[in-house]
């Protein structure tokens, strides 16, 4: 069973890397890019039947730092 976890900085948390990407897009001539936020995608191959609660536990304990990051879980099947 494949699971995808998206980890993103919380709204309001400064994202200097996203800002740098935004500047670089601007310098390449792409106009109108208002905001860039950078995060991570973590793909897990877990045992069939692993509950979403277990995945959430993994996120809370390790995959995300909930002081600064939010996470979203998607079961890919």
């Amino acid at each position: 069973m494949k699971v995808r976890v998206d980890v993103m900085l919380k709204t309001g948390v400064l994202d200097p890397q996203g800002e740098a990407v935004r500047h670089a897009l601007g310098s390449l001539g792409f106009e109108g890019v208002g905001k860039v936020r950078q995060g991570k995608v973590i793909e897990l191959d877990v045992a069939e039947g692993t509950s979403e609660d277990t995945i959430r536990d993994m996120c809370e304990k390790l995959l995300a730092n909930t002081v600064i990051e939010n996470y979203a879980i998607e079961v890919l099947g």
Partner: protein
Amino acid sequence: MRAAVIVFPGSNCDRDLAVAFERAGADVTMVWHKDDHLPEGTDIVGIPGGFSFGDYLRCGAIAAKSPISRSVAAHAGRGGYVLGVCNGFQVLTETGLLPGALMRNSNLKFICKPVELIVETTDSAFTGGYQKGQGLTVPVAHHDGNYQVDEATLAQLRAEDRIAFTYADNPNGSTADIAGVLSANRRVLGMMPHPERAVDAAHGGTDGVAMFRSLAEGLVSA
């Protein structure tokens, strides 16, 4: 003073930290991260700088889940002392022993240079050897030293006088110029600058000596 210095794969300031403790008169034991207990009678745990686990996932995140980290948390819970420097500070925020998080420097660059710190409180065993407002020159060497806390936590840190050091000229974007913070019981200190790299004239400065000396003199049994 009995000090235990934790060694993770990728730690690179462990020996420097051990030498700084030894010079202050401590018996130092190096403790591998896979050990699940600290040496009997440990007064203070040093969590060194470096790149534990290659900074994978987030700086300090994997180290914070190492077997020894549970023992360090238990030691702190009993009122034991902990000093986390640089990557050690990142480990302490990841374990939840200190609030906030260390993020990428605001200019995105690795910064390696001596900086001026201001001593914000002398009310701790770490900072009791300094004067409030004193300027110290201590090296920094980090890519992720941008300390971020929310407003409520910042207000609490200020109200409880838990900001140990600030930067005179903020190099990394840290909230309120914070370079080091204390736990609520004032026995856990995390800081990005390296006091252990300022304990010998050959380092270019000795402003870190007073911290280790003050610890050697001021520790109260847990």
